[in-house]
């Protein structure tokens, strides 16, 4: 196999512990379950919007306009599926239902003329996990199965989610170059966007942002530096997928940028920020180390086998 072929094979299919994917499953479905129910709420109000405003994009061109009865029925089904996927009970069916129903419920709010870009990566992650063997460890299903060994089938889903996140940032950088070129940095474009975000008239449904973003706008150069760093960061983000060293700098920068976008201009990239915190860190190793360090492990030691990933309490 050529060097490039080996690198390709290694990138997607190096052996990985089943627990690496299990952590992603538990955290991601758990996060969706908690946040969608409590914070985002049902998309039912969209069923009341007049048909005149229905403006489907992409996959939704093949899907029907929502009605209240379907949404009332699908909303609890989705949350039950998310809960089952989280604990790993009937995992395969639960992840598929979570994806198919979530595709509709999460996406439908963007099909009435105003598309938010905050949840695309959430849908793609649901799709990847629906096709992945993410219930093979740390799940109720795994208690009934024989232990699984490390394999490439636990790596490609994680790598695919990383690539999807990479595309969010790099696409945003490319769009800025296509639409504005490097004048996006040299002009006052970012300062004007920040001023709009802080205008009472423009998007006043966002929470008040305190005003220090406008202090930076008045100072001038900090916003120019922010514009240059933003574009450089977005265009360089593909390195995070390829290099662990680059990841150490780029991933915390991504999280910081998402937080700054909220405080400066208003949009909340909650799902993207959560996925950044989840997908780049080997949390299964952290969990294993934490379990091994528990003071009561002599009596009740959590033994997480490297191969089987079955949680045994003895």
């Amino acid at each position: 196999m050529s060097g490039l072929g080996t690198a390709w094979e290694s990138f997607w299919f190096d052996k990985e512990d089943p627990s690496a994917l299990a952590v992603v499953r538990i955290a991601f479905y758990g996060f969706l379950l908690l946040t969608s129910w409590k914070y985002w709420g049902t998309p039912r109000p969209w069923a009341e919007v007049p048909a005149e405003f229905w403006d489907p994009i992409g996959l939704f061109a093949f899907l029907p306009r929502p009605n209240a009865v379907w949404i009332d029925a699908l909303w609890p089904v989705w949350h039950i599926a998310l809960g089952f996927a989280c604990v790993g009970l009937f995992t395969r069916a639960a992840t598929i239902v979570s994806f198919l129903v979530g595709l509709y419920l999460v996406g439908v709010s963007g099909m009435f003329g105003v598309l938010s870009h905050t949840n695309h990566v959430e849908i793609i992650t649901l799709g990847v996990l629906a096709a992945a063997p993410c219930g093979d460890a740390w799940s109720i299903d795994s208690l009934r199965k024989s232990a699984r060994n490390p394999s490439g089938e636990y790596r490609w889903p994680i790598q695919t989610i990383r690539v999807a996140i990479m595309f969010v940032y790099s696409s945003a950088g490319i769009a800025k170059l296509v639409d504005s070129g490097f004048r996006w940095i040299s002009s006052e474009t970012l300062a004007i966007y920040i001023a709009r975000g802080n205008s009472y008239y423009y998007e006043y449904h966002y929470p008040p942002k305190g005003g220090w973003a406008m202090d930076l706008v008045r100072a001038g150069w900090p916003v120019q530096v922010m514009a240059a760093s933003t574009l450089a960061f977005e265009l360089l983000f593909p390195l995070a997928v390829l290099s662990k060293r680059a990841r150490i700098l780029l991933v915390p920068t991504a999280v910081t940028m998402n937080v700054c976008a909220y405080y400066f201009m208003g949009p909340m990239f909650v799902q993207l920020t959560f996925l950044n915190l989840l997908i780049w860190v080997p949390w299964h190793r952290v969990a294993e180390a934490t379990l091994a360090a528990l003071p009561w492990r002599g009596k009740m030691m959590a033994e997480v086998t490297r191969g089987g990933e079955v949680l045994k309490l003895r």
Partner: protein
Amino acid sequence: MRGKAYCVIAIVVLGQLTAIALQRELWPFSHYPMYSGLQADWTFESQRLYGVLEGGEEIPLETGSYFQPYEAYDISEVLAKATPDREKLDRELHSFLSWYQHGEAVHGGPKLRSLRAYRVLYLLSKELNPRKRLRSPVLSRTLIADTER
């Protein structure tokens, strides 16, 4: 396993590359154009709905609470997209009026005789202070559509 994996990887990568190449939305793939347009002026344009009361007085329908789940920003975007197509804009404005009247018992807004859509140009300033929640001054207001009950 490889076949399924490559299939998923191909959908994600090709879907996203197509959205980038075409620079258009292919939900759930996107070219993520947020804040990408060049801004030259310290102004911003917004499409606003105004209601005309029975007595002829015109009032701004500033909040989106009359048209839940739309926010005011969403209404502006919807009207802006419809503006190049006069017939579509008229239809949408008529739908907004019917929607408003249909929900009067819920939102408790005043009875309207008609609904108007304006393109409003606001002045932005570096001195803008969100701590004081001062409103940006209006530079101009242009009627773009009007509908009767």
